[in-house]
């Protein structure tokens, strides 16, 4: 700031000057003229004349004011240790920032907008990302979903088969004594597939895994774990769970999950980088967000299951029955971290949707008994 109120007569002081051409050090006299700063050598030669407006404060130790010329390719430097001379220059020059006040103001703006950006990023992740994924997924052709599904199927099988040294195949139903079970299983699936009218061919299989669970991958791959065959007391309970998985296929939930994951990875992983352990936080946040989406997804699949069970003449409430029985055994995990919403809520919702409709047996007694032995080979 050119300050007319202070003594505008020329002020002198000592400094050290580097001309930016060589490393030679010049002890200099600094002269503060009204509009420019003059740098003289001890022999009186003029080394530099800088106007106050083009001065720039550079990083330096705390007791030194280091000045350069803004935007100059030649890195000439003037260093002043004398605090009074430094203050006098600061008063005359607008850009000189001896106390760091300008820098602090700029920094405050950076901080404010970074926090604002973070808040809006989180908002997008929580609110907009599920909507985007829902809109985007129908645009993905089924041909791509099937290729994606085939790749994920191969990967998932490999990880499921890890540690299996027994030599018995992962899929149930291939051995001699499992043939009858497979016929019954295929009959059930065929009935359901006819009623459902899915836009892509279904590939359902029972797998030698002890958990009472079933999973659906993109491209119509449904894995039913052996534990579920044991846990189901009636064909309708078994069909109810499969109908729920049919819902995931029809709603393309696997593909949508991939779209969502890619979006979240983009938002958090790439954009924000990994400064220190930030990666772990991002993974945890992703799990949290994904879980909160998955509650609606599961509810929608339950709704689909009720409709499909009605179409094939099965018991609409059977899914609720088996759900509450399986969940009764395992309730220790924190609910936020498991994929399925609170079982009680689901059971209540399914009961509310169910109505009395004509029923017919899905499998005969013999067929159901055979299906129970689909994983007989051990």
């Amino acid at each position: 700031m050119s300050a007319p109120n202070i003594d505008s007569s020329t002020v002198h002081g000592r400094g050290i000057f580097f001309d930016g051409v060589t490393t030679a050090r010049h002890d200099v006299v600094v002269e503060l003229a009204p509009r420019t700063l003059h740098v003289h050598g001890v022999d009186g030669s003029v080394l530099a004349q800088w106007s106050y407006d083009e001065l720039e404060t550079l990083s330096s130790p705390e007791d030194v004011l280091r000045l350069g010329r803004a935007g100059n390719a030649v890195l000439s430097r003037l260093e002043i240790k004398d605090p009074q001379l430094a203050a006098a220059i600061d008063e005359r020059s607008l850009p000189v920032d001896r106390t760091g006040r300008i820098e602090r103001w700029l920094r405050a703006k950076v901080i404010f907008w970074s926090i604002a950006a973070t808040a809006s990023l989180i908002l997008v992740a929580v609110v907009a990302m599920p909507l985007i994924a829902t809109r985007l997924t129908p645009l993905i052709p089924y041909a791509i979903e099937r290729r994606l599904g085939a790749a994920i199927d191969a990967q998932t099988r490999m990880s499921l088969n890890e540690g299996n040294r027994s030599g018995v195949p992962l899929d149930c139903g291939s051995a001699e004594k499992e043939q009858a079970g497979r016929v019954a299983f295929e009959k059930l699936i065929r009935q359901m597939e006819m009623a459902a009218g899915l836009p892509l061919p279904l590939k359902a299989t029972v797998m030698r895994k002890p958990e009472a669970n079933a999973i659906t991958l993109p491209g119509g791959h449904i894995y039913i774990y052996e534990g579920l065959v044991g846990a189901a007391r009636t064909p309708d309970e078994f069909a109810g769970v499969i109908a729920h998985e049919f819902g995931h296929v029809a709603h393309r939930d696997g593909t949508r999950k991939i779209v969502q994951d890619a979006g979240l990875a983009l938002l958090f992983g790439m954009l924000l980088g990994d400064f220190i352990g930030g990666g772990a936080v991002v993974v945890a946040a992703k799990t949290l967000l994904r879980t909160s989406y998955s509650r609606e997804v599961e509810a929608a699949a339950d709704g689909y299951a009720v409709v499909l069970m009605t179409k094939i003449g099965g018991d609409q409430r059977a899914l609720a029955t088996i759900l509450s029985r399986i969940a009764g055994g395992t309730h220790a995990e924190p609910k936020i971290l498991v994929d399925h919403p609170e079982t009680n809520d689901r059971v209540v919702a399914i009961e509310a949707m169910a109505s009395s409709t004509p029923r017919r047996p899905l499998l005969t007694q013999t067929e159901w008994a055979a299906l129970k032995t689909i994983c007989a080979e051990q």
Partner: protein
Amino acid sequence: MTHFDAAGSAAHASLSAPQSIARFVGRGETFWRLLSCGAVLLMFTLGIYRFWLTTDVRRYLWSNTELVGESFEYTGTAYELLLGFLIALALLLPLYAAFFLLTLAPNNIWSLLGLLILILLGHYAFYRARRYRLTRTIYRGVRFHQTGSAILYSVCAVLWWALIVLSVGLAYPFAQSQLERFKMRHTFFGNLPGRFEGSGWHLLVRGLPLWAFTVVPLAIGTVAAMLAIDWNAINTASRADIPGTRTEASGFANIDVIIALTGAWLLGSIAFLYPVFHAIMLRWWVSGLRFGDVAVRSHLRIARVFGIYARFFGYAILFTAIAGVLLVAGAFGLSKLAGAPSSMRGEIITTVLSLGAYAAMALGYWTIYQATVKLGVWRYVVESLEVSNLAVLEGVAAAGEAASPIGEGLADALNVGGSGI
């Protein structure tokens, strides 16, 4: 003469008085304050603030390092780092998308190729980031700069690392000396060319005991674990009907013991030996640096570096204790406040808070590490320097131009330490 002259000549006298050749004049509290504010802001901006924090840290370290009475200067800005990151993002995003699609292909060769490309890119980024940092380093009005092909460097680095793996670490000293030669051969201070004279053999001799303490037990442990498995028993047992016999007959129980012993030995020796390794590397590296006729020697002692690490562990333990008490108190308070823990809302709040607590802990350790080890080692390296032929530094001519920050951005996006010092 005005009163300014009197003060000026006093300052001048103190400048020309004989001083130790290299010293660090920064105050520790300034650095602690810088880092702890930075850590809080990193947390609330999910890391966006890192460009500013990195720049602040470098400014502090550079400008407080003095050589013959003149301090260094860091002229890089946070905006440049941000720009570099954005450029890297533009380049890497399509690459990542391509890798994602390739990993879906059933052929695993593609994933391996992708990994190799990422490793090459990492070294490439490291070299270009070094160029950026050097050209933003000014001493006496003259900048450093770096020439040489980053692509060639990354190929060399990958080949050397492959050799290190194949030789169970024995090639490490030679890899370091050759890569450092490459870097320093292309490094200049103004028109003064740099070079590196550290010998791989010398480093090998110094580091051999460390190697014997860590790599040899690891190798023995692995071999012992392999031998402990009775492969015939596995083959017979796998046909047996009772699954339990499989593990018992095959000696898997012994393996657990061997693995646990090897792991414990490795953890213990690494905690004690890492400071030693760090000290040996630093002393060897600094003593090999040359710029024209200017030669550097380091008188760094292992015991002092050990002390620096001990200080880190002290602070870390203190921090853990305090944070632990706060966490327990917080959890207790929360359980009173949230009431029904089963409610969805309560769960989300708890999860978000635990995430925050985790991030705060991680950033706390990071801050302590930077303020004790990073700063302590930097200060000690500077103070233990001996520089000869300093007169050469008086007549160096300026050369080189400021380089693009793209390398820093790539290194940051690839997490290869671009945001470090």
